[in-house]
């Protein structure tokens, strides 16, 4: 249970005050304090009651006045008006002034107060929980912990992120797939002054172009077939916070001009709506494409490009980050072991070597998958090179990025085909359009070998 629940009863009818106090004190979590006039009560406001029940007709100060004073002092304190008579006009005006509820003195009063208390406590617990979760998120994205790296390209990135955190400038993040664009975006948001407000991520490629406008800017009820209720768009959702537009390079050219308009006017209109909504969200964009190149090709509007460029942060590919590969691998291994309640795992020197040599076309995302698999594959507390398998989609680029001598490439290719065609030299020679003797010579020089099944 939460802390004690302190209720202040302000009631000039001593007899009735006694009844309420008795009833509420039946719950051991509740402490009750009674006041018979407004003045005495207002003097004790600094004791921060969890709930105030306020008799509307006090002898010295009017209920409205007392309510106003409470709300000035601490707007969050719930005040329940308890009145001897039903007066809808008064009730509405008090509720408008911030009263939590308006209860008539009758047989059901006691139960109603209990309901109010129950609701307030639930609300308080939820508030508490939300604020805890928010702190957790902020800690999680403390960027010295969420972004790992010691290499010089990363040191440059860190200084750029620091600059982005300190201002409201639009940031454009580029980098190959898997280099951590979203992680950087979150790090910027959760370390900025907007951290307590929402971070809204939108992946442009995940939204069909017909729905894009209403997704981004919202729509009014009846704006189009199927718009059965008003809907708040992503930009509005991010009010006070940050909107992160991922894969901005994929945005449809029509949508680009709509987005440009919104950014220029700094306000938006929901689809089918007339009211204008002020834009108050910080914008971060990311793409794996070269936007300047897209502009040249005519796929991306030049004016929008300049508007979104802001502070460009270009994330290095993992293969350019040297020892960071091992730092990250260790981080992912530790994380995986912790999540799965396994003992600590170490990486053998040969496995480290293997990780360092690989070109990582899928970057950090791929590294994470590879090391997690290696954690599963090992039977001891050491990850060896045999536990590391690269199952990258196997594009020719990957192979080329390995930068091996041509001879080595040739050997690998021949070996690959021999394995594929069951060590059948004749078929392989035919497939590769080379002489059988070439393969036999390689076998003789033992640059390739036949595997016996």
């Amino acid at each position, binding site marked *: 249970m939460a802390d004690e629940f302190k209720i202040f009863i302000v009631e*000039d*009818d*001593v*007899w*009735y005050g*006694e*009844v309420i106090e*008795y*009833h509420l004190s039946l719950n051991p979590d509740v402490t009750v304090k009674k006041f018979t006039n407004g003045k005495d009560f207002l003097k004790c406001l600094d004791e921060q009651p969890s709930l105030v029940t306020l008799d509307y*007709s006090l002898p010295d100060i009017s209920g409205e006045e007392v309510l106003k004073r409470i709300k000035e002092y601490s707007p969050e304190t719930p005040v329940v008006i308890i009145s*001897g*008579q039903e007066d809808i006009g008064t009730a509405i005006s008090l509720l408008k002034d911030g009263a939590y509820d308006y209860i008539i*003195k*009758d*047989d059901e009063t*006691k139960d109603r107060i209990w309901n109010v208390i129950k609701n307030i406590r639930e609300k308080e617990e939820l508030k508490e929980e939300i604020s805890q979760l928010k702190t957790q998120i902020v800690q999680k994205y403390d960027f010295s912990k969420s972004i790992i790296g010691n290499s010089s390209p990363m040191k440059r990135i860190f200084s750029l992120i620091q600059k982005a955190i300190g201002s409201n400038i639009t940031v454009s993040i580029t980098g190959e797939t898997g280099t951590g664009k979203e992680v950087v975006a979150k790090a910027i948001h959760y370390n900025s002054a907007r951290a307590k407000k929402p971070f809204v991520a939108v992946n442009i490629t995940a939204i069909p172009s017909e729905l894009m406008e209403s997704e981004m800017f919202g729509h009014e009820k009846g704006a189009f077939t199927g718009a059965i209720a008003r809907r708040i768009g992503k930009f509005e959702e991010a009010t006070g916070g940050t909107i992160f537009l991922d894969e901005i390079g994929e945005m449809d050219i029509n949508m680009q001009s709509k987005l440009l308009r919104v950014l220029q006017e700094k306000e938006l209109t929901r689809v089918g709506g007339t009211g204008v909504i002020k834009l108050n969200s910080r914008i971060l964009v990311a793409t794996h494409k070269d936007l300047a190149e897209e502009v040249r090709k005519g796929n991306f509007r030049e004016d929008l490009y300049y508007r979104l460029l802001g502070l460009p942060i270009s994330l290095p590919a993992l293969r350019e980050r040297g020892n960071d590969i091992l730092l990250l691998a260790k981080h992912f291994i530790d994380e995986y072991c912790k999540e799965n309640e396994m003992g600590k795992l170490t990486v053998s020197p040969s496995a480290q070597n293997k990780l360092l040599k690989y070109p990582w076309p899928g970057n950090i995302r791929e590294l994470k998958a590879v090391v997690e698999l290696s954690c599963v594959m090992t039977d001891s507390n050491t990850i060896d090179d045999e536990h590391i398998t690269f199952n990258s989609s196997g594009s020719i680029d990957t192979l080329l990025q390995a930068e091996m001598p041509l001879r080595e490439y040739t050997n690998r290719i021949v070996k690959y085909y021999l394995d594929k065609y069951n060590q059948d030299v004749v078929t392989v020679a035919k497939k590769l359009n080379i002489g059988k003797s070439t393969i036999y010579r390689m076998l003789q020089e033992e640059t390739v070998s036949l595997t016996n099944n």
Partner: protein
Amino acid sequence: MEENLYSLHQLEALASGDTAFVNKMVDMFIQMAPESVDRMITALSEDDLEDLGAAAHKVKPSIDMMGITSLKQKIRDLEQWGKNRTNVELIPSLLDEVIETLNDVVQQLRNR
């Protein structure tokens, strides 16, 4: 033995066996009812009908809780008539009835 004009049923339900609480509330009522009566009499004599209504308003919840059903509507009429200055000519006799009943109730409670 005349019939009780009150019922402690509600208070007892709230107290669920705690007789000390019931006794305390009864004592408070015995002490406060005459105060309310005095206030209403004074108010009427000074033609301060608004204060008469306020006094009725204040005593209303205890009348309800003490189960004085015969006064349930009367105290409300007194409250409204005083507050709005309506049925002014009926107020003195209504007040007399209310006072008589209250005095009887207090008497009965004393001899409880």
